[in-house]
């Protein structure tokens, strides 16, 4: 019990917080990366979102504690193993979201509203919607769009293109369906026990859905690079298409050929060509928007 904060932190899954980096997208594309006020506001928003999303995991683990004790891996989670007492977790699960939401409304009422919607949506996901086919992935995608929207509100973005919302939603759907496809491929017959909703999906169905969202994503991003407003008039943003395309194809490759993709966060860190391509994309976007 000595390390309550540490066990709390583990339960709040800091690894999953990388998803909250999407809050910075608006800052980057609205050319405010060097504007101290907006950077500070966005960093604050990022931290608040981490607390909010972490609290959802806390609540999730609290309700699942009995079930987790039966699971070969999940039994080692702080709550299931008893390293974190239920009262501490319960207290944190009530206090942390309240504080985070209150601070969010103080930071910006619009941001507070988005944070509230996000929090409620994630709870709805944990307590039922994750078992509803298609809706489960749509909620994951909505989570990304809300992060981007939150970033856009706190950065008071004026030049943030609607194209980017479309791209971000499609990207999120792509990652969501990719995750389901990997779970099906890796878990096989055991898929059902792991995630009930997987019985509704088949590899063919997921391939169809992925083909749909991937094509839409590629074409939406391509159109963005040359038809969005507030981009360099020499269309140099088109030079970033190959990196985006490579990353998407590489991700498909990892899912199909290496049976990876189960957790996008780990792929994001683990595959050197993929990481390199993303860095090149980021560097190219940065150079084109800020330097030239």
């Amino acid at each position, binding site marked *: 019990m000595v390390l309550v904060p540490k066990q709390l932190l583990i339960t709040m899954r800091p690894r999953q917080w990388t998803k909250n980096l999407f809050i910075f997208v608006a800052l980057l594309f609205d050319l405010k990366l060097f504007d101290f006020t907006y950077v500070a506001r966005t960093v604050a928003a990022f931290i608040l979102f981490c607390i909010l999303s972490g609290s959802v995991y806390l609540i999730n683990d609290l309700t699942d504690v009995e079930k987790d004790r039966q699971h070969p891996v999940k039994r080692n989670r702080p709550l299931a193993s008893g390293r974190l007492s239920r009262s501490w977790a319960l207290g944190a699960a009530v206090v942390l979201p309240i504080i985070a939401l209150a601070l969010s409304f103080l930071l910006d009422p619009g941001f507070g509203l988005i944070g509230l919607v996000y929090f409620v949506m994630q709870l709805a996901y944990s307590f039922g919607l994750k078992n509803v086919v298609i809706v489960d992935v749509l909620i994951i995608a909505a989570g990304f769009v809300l992060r981007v929207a939150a970033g856009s509100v706190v950065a008071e973005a004026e030049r943030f293109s609607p194209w980017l919302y479309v791209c971000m939603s499609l990207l999120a759907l792509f990652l969501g369906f990719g995750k389901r496809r990997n779970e099906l491929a890796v878990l096989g017959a055991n898929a059902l026990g792991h995630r009930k909703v997987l019985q509704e999906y088949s590899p063919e169905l997921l391939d169809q859905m992925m083909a749909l969202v*991937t*094509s839409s994503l*590629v074409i939406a991003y391509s159109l963005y690079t040359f038809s969005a407003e507030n981009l360099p008039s020499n269309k140099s943003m088109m030079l970033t298409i190959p990196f985006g395309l490579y990353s998407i*194809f590489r991700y498909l490759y990892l899912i199909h*050929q290496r049976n990876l993709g189960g957790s996008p966060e780990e792929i994001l860190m683990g595959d050197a060509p993929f990481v390199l391509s993303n860095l090149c994309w980021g560097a190219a976007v940065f150079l084109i928007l800020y330097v030239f």
Partner: protein
Amino acid sequence: MVGELFGAMHLRRWLKNIFMFAPLAFGMKLGMTDLFGRSVVAFACLCLLSSASYLVNDLVDTERDRYHPAKRDRPLAARRLKRSWAVGAAAVLAAISLLVAFIVDYRLGLVASTFLGVEIAYSLLLTNFVILDVLTIAAAFILRVMCGSVIARATTFSPWLYVCGGFLALFLALGKRRHELIVLGDLAPKHRRTLAGYSSSLLGQMISVVTSSTVIAYSLYTFWGAHVPENKSMMLTIPFVLYGILRYLVLIERPDLPASPEEILIKDPPLVINNLLWGGTVLAILYLF
């Protein structure tokens, strides 16, 4: 020996260089004789340059080609052409065509040099990396279009041309790999290393991405692009593009056909007729109405 040399220059693949005329045709400049003359010269340069790169490619791949049912008959793989001849010819062709390109327009020289660099980098290195190999092929197509753009003295940059051309090139390259997987089966990776990295389902996914993107980009071009008629008649050409892509999808599934897109594009009557109709309709809409 000269006949064998021509064989190793893959004259049929020169067809790809026709992409170079796209900026001239779609920029409404096909009737300008001076530009057209310059384009023909540039086209010749590109053809000789690509032949130089094919020679390099066959020199690098000689051993691997011997495993391939069709490619083992290539002049270098079959030892009918001496390697020294091939090396010499590649050097002379590259030197002459680059020289002419720089004389015509120094920017053409620069783009053409990049083109040769990309083609050689592909043969020596990039052909071994999954995904990167098809992206490099698409890059070479885009450089062909850029050559045409320089020659046509294009004043406005046409993003559609590059997007449609790039996705179409990716489609042809991915289709070729899918066809090779079907024809060669287990031997596939021996012939092309990256085929170990591609599977039928992965290629299927990638092909659906690039085909959808080509169709959407082309459709948007027909009513948003530069120089298209006010009455949107360019939209009448969409069915041809759709048919061409779908027909090609059917053809790559058939193991009895040759693997290279150039040959499929020449040898399948429905596809040939469709492509001619498409070209004719585009030219008629742009220039007559």
